[in-house]
């Protein structure tokens, strides 16, 4: 079976070399531009870590749903309704109170946005991939409408006003800085790993995801578990939106998320079975997102990093599925 994986890897490498060839850039030049842009400089590393944060928290959200056997492609929509809810609360209540209540509002908004997908999956059999994608589109349109009209800042262009207080930096020296949001994100991944492995409810969730029928006989209601998993996943995705507002953006605007929720699915798929693997997976995605810009300067269109991610996801999935059936 090993040769099949080798063939897949060889095919992936060939595709990438071919892509570099037609853009007239040598593989060494491309790789060094990618590495230098994402890791080699203080501002580059700062940006890579900044990109890592929402990817990691949203990745935690998607990972949780995946363990329950659900594809939450709606993290994007849940993240943006959460971000808007947080901004609106924090604009009215300044200081720490506003930040805490804003985060709470984001968590509730994200969970509410995910709920229909969970309920329809559990009680109507409608596939969550379709419902979450539809809800994403509705979220983009609804928030777009709100920031263009009812909650628009005076004089602003499809944006809310900026909030007064922000999450502080963890450390800052020269051109390098890390927001407190990054350890929060890492903590979220560690907490999820602990919860899934060491608690009864976490075990029940994995059991329902691995084999709903067996879970039912063991006294776990797989339907209720699915709805709860979706609610929790949406809440965490909403939390990711809140963190993004409080730590980095300070406001909500049209086009707030460049697709963090979608990339989070890639992060979760790459992490595979282990929640702790979300941390390096999110960093890889974050660094590639930053490095893509440096590649673009060299003349390689940034789409190539998306191709790299797609190929990585395929290879990772093929490695895990060889012969044996997947057990969550």
């Amino acid at each position, binding site marked *: 079976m090993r040769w099949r994986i080798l063939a897949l890897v060889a095919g992936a490498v060939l595709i990438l070399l071919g892509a570099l060839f037609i853009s007239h850039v040598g593989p060494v030049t491309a790789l060094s531009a990618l590495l230098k842009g994402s890791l080699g400089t203080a501002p580059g590393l700062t940006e890579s870590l900044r990109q890592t944060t929402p990817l990691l928290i949203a990745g935690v959200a998607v990972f949780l749903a995946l363990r329950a056997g659900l594809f939450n492609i709606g993290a994007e929509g849940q993240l943006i309704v959460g971000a808007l809810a947080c901004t609106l609360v924090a604009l009215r209540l300044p200081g720490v109170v506003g930040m805490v209540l804003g985060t709470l509002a984001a968590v509730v908004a994200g969970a509410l946005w995910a709920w229909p997908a969970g309920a329809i999956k559990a009680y109507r059999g*409608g596939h969550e991939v379709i419902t979450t994608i*539809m809800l994403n589109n509705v979220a983009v349109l609804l928030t777009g409408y709100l920031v263009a009209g009812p909650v628009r800042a005076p004089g602003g262009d499809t944006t809310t006003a900026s909030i007064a207080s922000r999450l502080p930096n963890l450390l800052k020296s020269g051109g390098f800085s890390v927001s407190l949001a990054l350890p929060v994100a890492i903590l979220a991944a560690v907490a999820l790993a602990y919860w899934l492995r060491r608690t009864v409810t976490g075990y029940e969730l994995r059991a329902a995801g691995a084999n709903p029928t067996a879970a039912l006989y063991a006294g776990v209601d797989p339907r209720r578990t699915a709805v709860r998993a979706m609610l929790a996943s949406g809440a965490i995705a909403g939390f990711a939106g809140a963190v993004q507002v409080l730590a980095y953006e300070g406001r909500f605007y049209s086009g707030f998320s460049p697709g963090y929720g979608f990339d989070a699915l890639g992060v979760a798929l790459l992490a595979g079975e282990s929640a702790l693997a979300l941390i390096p997976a999110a960093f890889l995605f974050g660094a590639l997102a930053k490095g893509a810009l440096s590649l673009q300067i060299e003349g390689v*269109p940034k789409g190539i990093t998306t191709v790299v991610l797609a190929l990585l*996801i*395929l290879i990772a999935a093929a490695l895990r*599925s060889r012969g044996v059936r997947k057990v969550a």
Partner: protein
Amino acid sequence: MPNVLVSQTLALSTPLLFAAMGGYASERSGVVNIGLEGLMLTAACAAAVAAPHYGPYAAVAIALAVTVLLSLLHWLATQVYRIDHVISGMAVNLLAAGGTNFVASLANAASSDVPHLPVVGYEGVALGLPFVVFLYVRATRGGLRLVATGADPDKARLAGLVPERVRLAALIATGLFAGLGGTMLVAYTEGFTNDMVAGRGYIALAALVLGGWRPLPTLVACLAFGLMSALRIQYAGGTVLGVSPPSEFWAALPYLATVVALAGLLGRGRVPAGLGKS
């Protein structure tokens, strides 16, 4: 006005119809296919890039060939590597999003000198396709084998079929149909823009689900989605029944309708029994 509405409905539902029939071939054979979006995107990009060099007819042929290749990657991933169908479908979508961005920026495919594609008759073909598919599945050996494989791959194997082979043929058809839907998009707009499919692949999938994985109800669902998009063009910014909803409301209508329809009883319990099984 009503005539405009009818012609716009037809024009807007045609890409959906092609893609939905592509989804039908795949999912009836037992392969979950959320990669329709990526297939359409690939076809649109390939047609736009090839048309200035090789002319419109060859461009459509090239686009279909490339789309079939991408569809076969989904076959390889799910049937040979046994990757989860949804994961493979996501990878297909990502690959298409990144690959088309890459190729289009190198080839400058957004330029408006992309010649018109031969889409005259597309709408008629699209409307007829579900009926052809219906008859094919009901009345031919190949069609029965397709449905049998999707319903229970293990029993199909006992009956002497090779599910992997049936699915190979099915995914070639998926690539062709979704490719036709994708090339239509460039035919209307002349030129490729990133993310120009804008969720039509997922809407087509929703139409297939709402149609209960049956060709004729899926046709009705596609027409309904087309009508909702046409209403948006007609009424956005205007006043209907004394209220003037924002244009975002009209844009959100098909998505909301899908969620509500799935929450209701539509499409329930008609899932091909072997969907997603190896």
